[in-house]
């Protein structure tokens, strides 16, 4: 295990270093503009997997947490002119707190009821933001970027590196959970909640923890978004597409391993960017839906499942 950890840490550092290095080598901004979106989807999909994959609770509320992240940033920027890192940290805290509240309210529900409740939370928060005039209401709000910081040539390139760091944090968290008692507990309650409870697994506590961590990561993923778009509007921030994307990318990649959502997000994210540029944005949404349906029907374990089937079937 130890050697694995070192290799993982090394890989993570290499990833961030490579991301930072390319911002100096490549002059054109567009690759980073598109890359940012893909990285953002990786964070969302990995965060979704912590609750949706490990614990088996299908969360349709990714857009709620994402939107809360967006609007925490907007509020902090408008009220205090807070710097980006503070925005992300506070957004994560707010997202975690929201995860706790939503978890307390909904995690006693099973299956479809939980899923519907998470949609409900999304729409309710969306409605509150629409009616909150200070952060722009339904019409949205313009956000002014602060001046670019020293080593970076442009703000978008900096955001790209920031999002790359968030990816590392999300993946490291998911990986830690997967290999720890928490992950085993979550998997036990996913397979049979009653049996897990009877064998002494603190199911509600674990579910709450997963919900808090997942919520914090999703909100953090949304926090840099206002600076990236220089604009925030509830229709876009709480767009149900984020919920579908997070869920679809995770299920397509495979939810049994942290690598699954990463693969799913990269694969779908790249294809979507390509489709948006070459065909239309409606086409990429269609692709998302079709891929989701095809995978849940034909490859229940996702891409990961296609490769590691033998290994997972050996372990009971």
């Amino acid at each position, binding site marked *: 295990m130890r050697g694995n950890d070192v290799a993982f840490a090394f890989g993570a550092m290499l990833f961030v270093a490579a991301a930072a290095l390319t911002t100096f080598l490549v002059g054109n901004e567009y690759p980073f503009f598109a890359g940012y979106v893909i990285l953002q989807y990786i964070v969302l999909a990995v965060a979704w997997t912590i609750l949706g994959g490990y614990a088996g609770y*299908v969360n349709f509320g990714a857009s709620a947490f994402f939107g809360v992240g967006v609007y925490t940033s907007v509020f902090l920027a408008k009220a205090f002119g807070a710097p980006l890192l503070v925005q992300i940290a506070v957004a994560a805290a707010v997202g975690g707190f929201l995860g706790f509240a939503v978890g307390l*309210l909904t995690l006693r529900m099973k299956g479809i009821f939980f*899923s519907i409740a998470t949609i*409900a939370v999304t*729409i309710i928060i969306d409605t509150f933001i629409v009616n909150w005039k200070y952060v722009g209401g339904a019409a949205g709000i313009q956000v002014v970027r602060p001046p670019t910081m020293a080593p970076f040539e442009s703000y978008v390139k900096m955001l790209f590196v920031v999002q790359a760091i968030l990816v590392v944090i999300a993946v490291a968290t998911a990986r830690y959970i997967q290999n720890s008692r928490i992950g085993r507990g979550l998997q036990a309650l996913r397979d049979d909640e009653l049996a897990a409870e009877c064998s002494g697994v603190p199911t509600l506590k674990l579910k709450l923890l997963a919900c808090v961590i997942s919520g914090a990561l999703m909100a953090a993923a949304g926090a840099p978004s206002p600076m990236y778009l220089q604009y925030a509007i509830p229709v876009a921030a709480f767009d149900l597409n984020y919920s579908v994307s997070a869920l679809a990318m995770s299920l397509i990649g495979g939810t049994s391993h942290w690598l699954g959502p990463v693969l799913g997000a990269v694969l779908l994210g790249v294809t979507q960017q390509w489709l948006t540029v070459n065909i239309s944005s409606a086409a990429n949404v269609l692709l998302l*839906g079709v891929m*989701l349906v095809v995978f*849940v029907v034909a490859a*229940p374990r996702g891409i990961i499942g296609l490769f590691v089937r033998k290994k997972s079937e050996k372990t009971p």
Partner: protein
Amino acid sequence: MINDSGGVFETTTGRGWGVFSVELLIESIIFGVLLGCFYCAVSIGLSVAFGLIDVPHIAHPAFLVLAAYCVYILNDTWGIDPLLAGVLITPLFFLFGIVVYRLYHAMFEKRGSDAAVRGIAFFFGVAFIIEVLIILQFGVDQRSVTAPYIGKSWRILEMRIPIRQIVAFVVAVSLTLALTLYLSRTFTGRAIRAVAQDEGALRLLGADPIRIKTWAFGLATAILGIAGALLIVVAPVEPTLDRAYIGRTFCVVVMAGLGSMSGTLVAAIILGVAESVVLTSFGASWAPAISFSLLLAVLAVRPQGLFGR
């Protein structure tokens, strides 16, 4: 007769608490009851599909919007009356429902508990596909139908009640009544309720639960033909309308207590009145949150619903 041109809520846009009067309250309650009966018509199919035979049918509102667009095509191309068009598409939707259920059963129900999670994702994906296909075909603009009873209203005392609301009310109540009678008086109807109560017992009696469930899901989808017609009669439709109706339909079905038909009518009226009163007093921008808040409240306080089994 007076012409009206807006949607469902044309007479009830935000007036603020300042001018809130008893007459306004009574008016909004009457509108709420009419609206509630309409909500009952669009939810009753889900009450069968989700309430009775336990299919996590998140795509129900998407099917509803799809039906509304089918009615739009018939009305726009051949000028067929929207309600007649709704009846005409029911056989098609019946077959559609049978195909969807068979697919769902083969892919998810048979495979056991882990598959249930993916079943939910499956319907979510299907809803999404329908939404995007409608956008690709018709664009994001609102669509509406023409009929003699759309755009006129009756004046009763001080109130103006659009005739389309009354048409929707009458059709919705008849639909609910017919379905309640069907489920309690006919052999197949009773079989559907039996399958909801104890599938194993039914199998022991020599009946095939899957066949009955397929029939029930087909029926639930067929009803959407008429419900979709009402949807586009009451107000113009747009492709993403299904998102608002996820809240409304599931709120009604869960509040009713799964599978109770008369409960569905009562719950729908409660939702209709709540929406209408809140709209009158706070304004339309709060509308989307009402059904979802009510749904959350029911799930948190009384998950078995008002008339739960």
